[in-house]
């Protein structure tokens, strides 16, 4: 490309030179946010798929649910760049999954700084794929974010947008899976939950569906440098605010 015109011979040479690096392909997955509700689903699915899983946890995190799964732990604070650097260097890891979330009224800068450090060190340590669980409202999905929620959520969504930016600009191959309305942890997907690259798609989705998408995107070239919205239009919801929300999305789409 550009001034470089590779010949068939140099290409073959390059192909063979890269082959020894396939040791990385056998390497594991590092999960951030693995003690959270979404992270737990993802870790469980990864372990079930036979992956070598390491979970980045704070020294104070509760590991009760992760310990029986036989995963490894890397300890640190995601807001301390040195800790993130050390975690990525403790690999090699071929895939990094970010399922971080902070409850309540935390400093939105959390989503910017954590993604800045993870992206930078994933890129520098040669990670093949960073899978980020993000939020609808970031980037080009801004127009479909409910205006009524923007007053409260605007700073968080803007921070998540900047987090995505750090990942996209880092040069690390990325997959962003956004959700708009995450259903309660006990709800299970309809079996027909889907991902779309249409960034104007609204929907509700369950954590088990997001975990399934994560596994399906692992090492999958069709997910590289793509942004998806997860949704489950076929899920049956009991009467209440989630069903009302789903109805309002249907109306908005019409």
């Amino acid at each position, binding site marked *: *490309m*550009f*001034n*470089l*015109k*590779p*010949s*068939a011979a*140099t*290409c*073959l040479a*390059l*192909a*063979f030179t*890269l*082959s*020894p*690096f*396939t040791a990385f*392909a056998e390497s594991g997955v590092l999960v951030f946010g693995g003690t959270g509700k979404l992270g737990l689903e993802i870790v469980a699915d990864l372990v079930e798929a036979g992956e070598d899983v390491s979970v980045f946890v704070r020294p104070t995190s509760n590991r009760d649910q992760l310990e029986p799964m036989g995963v490894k732990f890397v300890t640190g604070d995601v807001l301390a760049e040195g800790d993130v650097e050390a975690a990525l260097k403790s690999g090699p890891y071929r895939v990094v999954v970010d399922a971080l979330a902070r409850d309540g009224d935390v400093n939105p800068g959390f989503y*910017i700084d954590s993604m800045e450090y993870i992206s930078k060190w994933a890129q520098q340590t040669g990670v093949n794929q960073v899978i980020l669980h993000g939020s609808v409202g970031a*980037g*080009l999905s*801004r127009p479909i974010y409910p205006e009524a929620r923007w007053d409260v959520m605007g700073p968080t969504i803007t921070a998540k947008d*900047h987090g995505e*930016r*750090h990942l*996209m*600009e880092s*040069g690390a191959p990325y997959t962003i899976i956004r959700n708009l309305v995450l259903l309660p942890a006990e709800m299970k997907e309809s079996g027909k939950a889907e991902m779309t690259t249409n960034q104007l798609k609204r929907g509700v989705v369950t954590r088990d569906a997001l975990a399934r998408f994560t596994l399906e995107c692992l*090492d999958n070239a069709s997910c590289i*440098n793509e*942004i998806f919205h997860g949704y489950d239009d076929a899920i049956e919801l009991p009467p209440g605010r989630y069903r009302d929300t789903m109805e309002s999305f249907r109306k908005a789409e019409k």
Partner: protein
Amino acid sequence: MPSLLRGLSTAILCTLLSSAAVKADGGVLVFGGTGQLGLEIVKALTAKGEDVTVFARPQSDRTSLGSMNISFVTGDVLNEDDVSAAFQSGSFRVVIDALARDGNDDADFYIESMEYISRAAKETGVSQVILHGSVGAGLSHLSERDSEEDFGPLMVAKGLGERYLMESGTPYTIIRNWALLPFPAKESGQAFMTEDQSARGLITRDALARFTVECLNQARCINKIFHTVDDAVDAPERYRSSLKAQRDWEKSQK
């Protein structure tokens, strides 16, 4: 990924790159070529012997470009069919976007124009899109003193325009300016580009044109975002004082 597969995919990628290199003989398509920045860029391109095509509205004043040996393609950048037809009208290896609209009341212009240009560039296999953007978009928003009061919606729109380009998959170069000095200011000779998105500075159009030509087909500029600074330039006092205010504000944030 198994080693054979990785080697094979590298070989396939190389083959694709080799054939893409055929396009290195194509010309340069310029959007915004009739504006003050565009004019400087077209001059610099023709001085280098590039085959230049300028996309212009039928009613655009072409007199300043009249004496130069360039081609024109006519259309409205907010009409996707026109943009698509322009890309089909020739073989372009690089596309430059130097579009600007006077006043700050038409923010969506920057979103839609970039959406259409990015998509057409991707579809026709352009090897580089160079976008002249604004400091205040994307991650540079985080270190911008004035953004909310004066330029909020405009910078959000320009950020979304950048997003379209970055997500399109077309190799991109974004060159942002913070304060563009009035024509006919000339650069000091010490103007530079930096990947530090917190950098702010004054800049002239001739320096931006020089950077554009220097980035043409350069791997070091691919998928990068630059800020432009010329600290040694002669500038009116009001520009100096706003730069000082910005830099004082940055210090106070640390």
